[in-house]
């Protein structure tokens, strides 16, 4: 994920606000896909209150914001599409065909492509955002799941749950250039802001694999020291010093000290936490609790939950606006 200067973010928000007076835009908004109520909850991060709920389609899961902050993408698994929501008007403006059963995806840093995992097809689709054309369907491991793009946009990681692998895709050639064996049932991947390392959660393995991106090699394995933790989501703080892992089984968030290479603590949240989203300044972490139907808001400085927000049914993914 690319992190942009705060000044740019504010400028972007103002421009959007000026062009769309019907919806008051202020602080960055947080978007949560609700798998079982088929909608997206929109939260104002300034007040941590719900400002809107928007129906999006049947079984929304993966969710992400375009780099220009104008579009929200939501993977609609039962419809085989990525829904495009115009952030200013909060309306669905397009549905892009995304191959069979899209679950998770990532947006390229330049905003021109979506990289989508197609679980049923054991492939990753590369989609041109502007035309909606599928540029390539790339075979990866069995039951692909998590997708992450390196900050420079040159690599895409796709985890595969049944082969326990990460397929490394070169975005120039659209070929798999390496396959990395990680823990059992890998779910998500996240790069550090400098792109040198990546973290991959393994739900059944109960661990996080640390990958040296340059060497395509696992350099460390961090065991989640909880009973049946089932780690799922992972996100790296903009300062590159901390990573967070949601543990769907032990109902907490693990805090990883990147430099020390160890877990420095756990923050209890709601039931079955999966999706994670950080504000651009890194001060707030939003956690989707899929069974409690709510969102935990964590103050990253104090490492405490400072709020709990009601979501729809089965909150799954979190994306934070620009």
């Amino acid at each position, binding site marked *: 994920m690319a992190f942009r200067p705060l000044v740019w973010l504010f400028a972007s928000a103002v421009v959007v606000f000026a062009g769309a007076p019907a919806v008051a835009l202020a602080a960055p908004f947080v978007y949560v896909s609700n798998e079982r109520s088929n909608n997206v909850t929109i939260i104002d991060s300034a007040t941590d209150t719900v400002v809107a709920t928007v129906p999006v389609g049947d079984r929304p899961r993966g969710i992400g914001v375009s780099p220009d902050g104008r579009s929200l993408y939501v993977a609609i698994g039962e419809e085989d599409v990525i829904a495009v929501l115009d952030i200013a008007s909060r309306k669905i403006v397009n549905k892009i065909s995304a191959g069979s059963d899209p679950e998770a995806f990532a947006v390229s840093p330049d905003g021109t492509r979506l990289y989508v995992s197609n679980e049923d097809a054991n492939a990753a689709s590369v989609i041109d955002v502007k035309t909606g054309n599928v540029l390539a369907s790339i*075979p990866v*491991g*069995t039951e692909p799941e998590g997708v992450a793009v390196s900050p420079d946009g040159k690599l895409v990681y796709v985890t595969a749950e*049944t082969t326990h692998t990460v397929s490394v895709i070169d975005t120039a050639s659209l*070929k*798999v250039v390496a*396959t990395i064996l990680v823990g059992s*049932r890998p779910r998500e991947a996240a790069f550090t802001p400098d792109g040198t390392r990546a973290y991959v959660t393994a739900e059944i393995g109960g661990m996080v694999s640390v990958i040296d991106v340059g060497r395509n090699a696992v350099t460390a394995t961090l065991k989640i020291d909880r009973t049946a933790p089932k780690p799922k989501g992972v996100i790296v703080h903009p300062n590159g010093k901390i990573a967070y892992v949601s543990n769907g089984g032990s109902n907490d968030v693990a805090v990883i000290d990147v430099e020390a290479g160890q877990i420095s603590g756990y923050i209890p949240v709601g039931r079955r936490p999966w999706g994670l989203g950080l504000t651009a300044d890194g001060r707030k972490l939003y956690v989707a609790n899929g069974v409690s139907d709510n969102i935990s808001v964590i103050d990253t400085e104090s490492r405490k939950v400072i709020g709990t927000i009601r979501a729809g049914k089965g909150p799954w993914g979190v994306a934070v606006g620009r």
Partner: protein
Amino acid sequence: MTAKTRRAFLQHTAIATLGSLAERVARTAALAGAGALFARPARAAETYVLGVVLPAEAAAASALQQGAGLGLDDANALATLFGKMLRLEAASASDGAGAAREARALARGGALGVVGGTGAGVADGLRDAAADGVLVMNVAAPDDRLRNDRCERRLFHVAPSVTMLVDALAQWVVDQRRFTRWAVEGDGGARAAEIEAAARRALARLGGSVVESVSAEIRLLAGADDAVRSVLARARGEGRADRVAGIGGEVPLALGGEEAAGLWSMGWHPELDRFSARELNARFRRRFNGPMTEPSWAAWAAVKLVGEAIVRGNATATTAVIAFLESAPPFDGHKGSALTFRKWDHQLRQPLYVAAPRKRDEIAGRRGPFAVLADVPGGDLDTIGTTAADTRCRFPA
């Protein structure tokens, strides 16, 4: 197995293997710019062989070979990424002596181990082969004695035991239905004796007991299949379909909608949805146009486990596969938990499922007569099955 059947099985699995392999080799070839690789996929990989001992009975053999076939697909989806490959070699046996003979022959021929356990006496025969040094993955026989007095270091049980199935059923029934007085209706056979012993143990732990039929709240059926079907029909006719129970999925999943009755514990169900069970069931159905049954799941798991031993454990010989399995690698059986083999009897820890009949108007399409009510246990997997303290199994040091 006739030569024709054997050839068909090998052809069947080979086609599947080549299908997935071709895709991966094509990718490798494209990366390396070496199109010639596509024409010679098998030579590019280190190849390992795993035996499958099939029963004589066609339907049971089919369930086993289909599960093993999908397991091979999944094992090779991983192995071929790392220049390795697994191949299945099949044999057929109609009794214990034949199973032991075939298993030993497969091992002498270079197989890392054998998968089997379906058919009369077959599991005991395979156990004898294990005593002679053959690695055996039991994918069907629930007998407690194979995990106790007749346990073997080289015998690993992917199929759940009688004690696990009874424990799961008892935990759910006592917790959800509050039935604590159980009658066990058996036929005097060895299986019935194991079921009754397991029921007495389970109920004693849960505050219940085994009683005479006249005062029982629920009857646990432990007889032969024909007798069980007869009792089910009677219970259904009397409107007491939830006052009978049994273990294993074979009987209930073969019943039609008009016949469905009883509460059943089982190791797998073709309608399981959570924890990516939906994806596994869907892949099986797409491949074989039928439901994934308990032995199919267990055969799939056994083959995939050996495949992971080859890649994760870098196992190249039987002893290394055994060492890998004993190291308790967290196996993903699409059951939502890390499945590992117990040290004391080599039984795979796993959640089981309790199913009950659907209402007649809810049965449609792929929604069969039985619906899964719960996976059991909700927490510690060692609350079902023989514990380290209870086991009579003693492996040599």
